[in-house]
């Protein structure tokens, strides 16, 4: 019951193993949010974490970051407990809204990705120019490098925060609902950029989303969360009537049309389709700055 599709990573592939979550249980205020979660991610994989609101996506990201206490189980990154790697994992939060009056340029925010946790005088020495330039180039952010961060568009602020996370060359980059507030064109630009990072920089990228469709062309793996449990594997193995019905505990229909996927869980308690992972920004929508 715990992991419906266990990841089939063989011994010879352990060199590639980046993230290993085993028997993870998380409770928040006495309520079980994640129950016995198991999955593994390899280096250089593009992975989506799909689930409805309240499925535990953000909780899982926070647990990987070491910000969420874990009731049971382990999270290991490159063989070490995640708590030891705190500060080395890249994270792009969902809510990004900088004050327009902050005297902080994009390049200053990116530089803080390297220096933001340096106490003492170390932060004032060491040349970060080339690292900052490389991170800005990776998100195509050279054009707004010298503008105040709070005066950029929502999409540009998001790319600035990605550069802030990338500058310390994290092995793992987590993005919480990065597509939630983007229009069609910005979504494609962002997904292609992330795909390029995975291929060229060999970074493992884990993206949470309601809707898997924009991510499909690039996805190596999919973690489908529902009711605190997960199905893990590649898209075709996980997104099937049988697997998802097992996960939800009631019948689920998967429709495929012209390369797009529609998941229709049929919740018996409500007697109707409750979730279609189409665009549902309105529920989550944060107004841009």
């Amino acid at each position, binding site marked *: 019951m715990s992991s419906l599709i266990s990841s089939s990573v063989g011994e010879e592939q352990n060199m590639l193993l980046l993230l290993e979550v085993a028997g993870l249980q998380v409770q928040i205020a006495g309520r079980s949010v994640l129950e016995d979660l198991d999955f593994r991610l390899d280096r250089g994989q593009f992975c989506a974490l799909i689930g409805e609101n309240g499925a535990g996506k953000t909780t899982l990201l926070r647990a990987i*970051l070491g910000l969420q206490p874990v009731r049971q189980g382990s999270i290991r990154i490159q063989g070490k407990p995640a708590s030891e790697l705190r500060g080395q994992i890249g994270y792009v939060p969902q809510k990004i809204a900088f004050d327009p009056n902050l*005297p902080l340029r994009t390049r200053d925010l990116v530089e803080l990705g390297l220096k*933001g946790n340096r106490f003492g005088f170390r932060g004032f020495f060491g040349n970060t120019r080339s690292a900052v330039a490389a991170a800005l180039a990776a998100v195509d952010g050279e054009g707004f490098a010298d503008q105040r961060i709070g*005066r950029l568009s929502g999409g540009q602020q998001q790319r600035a925060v990605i550069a802030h996370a990338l500058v310390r060359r994290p092995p793992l980059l987590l993005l919480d609902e990065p597509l939630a507030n983007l229009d069609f064109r910005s979504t494609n630009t962002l997904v292609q950029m992330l795909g390029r990072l995975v291929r060229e920089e060999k970074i493992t990228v884990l993206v949470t989303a309601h809707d898997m469709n924009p991510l499909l062309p690039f996805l190596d793996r999919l973690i489908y969360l529902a009711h605190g449990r997960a199905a893990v594997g590649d898209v075709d193995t996980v997104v099937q009537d049988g697997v998802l019905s097992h996960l939800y505990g009631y019948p689920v229909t998967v429709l495929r049309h012209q390369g797009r996927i529609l998941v229709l869980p049929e919740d018996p308690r409500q007697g109707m389709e409750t979730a279609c992972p189409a665009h549902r920004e309105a529920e989550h929508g944060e107004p841009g700055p």
Partner: protein
Amino acid sequence: MIPEFPDLGLLHFLNDPSVRSALWIGTMAAMLNGVIGVFAILRSQAFAGHALGDISSAGGAAAVFTGISALWGFLGMAWLAALVLSALGLKRAGERDLVTGVVLGGGLGISALFLYLDATGSSYSGAAVSIMFGSLFGIPGSMVLPVILSAMAGLLLVLLCYHPLLLVAADPDLARVMGVPAAFLETLYLLLLGLAAAISALTVGAILATALLLGPAGAAIHLARHPAQAFLYAAGIAFFCVVAGIYLAYESFYWFDGMAWPVSFFVVVLVLLSYLLAAAGSRIGIRQGRQTPAGATR
């Protein structure tokens, strides 16, 4: 420690020992408040800065009543209030402002009590005015060294924690992800804010402390293009306002037949003028396209 000056012409005011004490204390107040004020504005905690200044008046009044030095009175009360705010550890801005307001009310109530006790019990009748509006020329020379040492210690702490403080101010979430101890920095910052407010209260008075804390920093944020520039501009503007204010107050003795106007008045007017000039300057800068106005890139 302070050498005698020869005839200095325009700078003849430096010959007066009380002016020299005022300059030392004012310079320290300016540098610390300029720097801490920028953080206060970056963190949207201008109101907390204002409140700590006002609340420190209770300590100033208690100091007069008990006979201890005014600096320790201001500082003790500002730190007590800072620790209360830190212990409440509120995250949402609206909630924080509400609690700051409640703590401010309590502090001013204590201030009312001690000012009453000062007025009825002590021989020093001008206590209320000098606590609330400052009397920079009346500060004893023995205060100079403690002020210099505590302000320098404050600035050193800011330097040691500069980048983490900046990241927490820009976005606390990003800071936590990088393993920055955000709660520790919050308390440290509030204690530094209390120190800045106390030295500012000593310089221009508890009520006007907020002017030195927020005015130069606000002006600097209008003009600066990046963080280091904001800190340097804020300290520079505050320094100019304090020194020019001291000079004008000293000279005003000759303008008004021996009735010198208060230093605090001149300092605060100069702070206001700098802020207005900076705000106007940044608007002109935006119009000329040097900076992008809000929303223009969307």
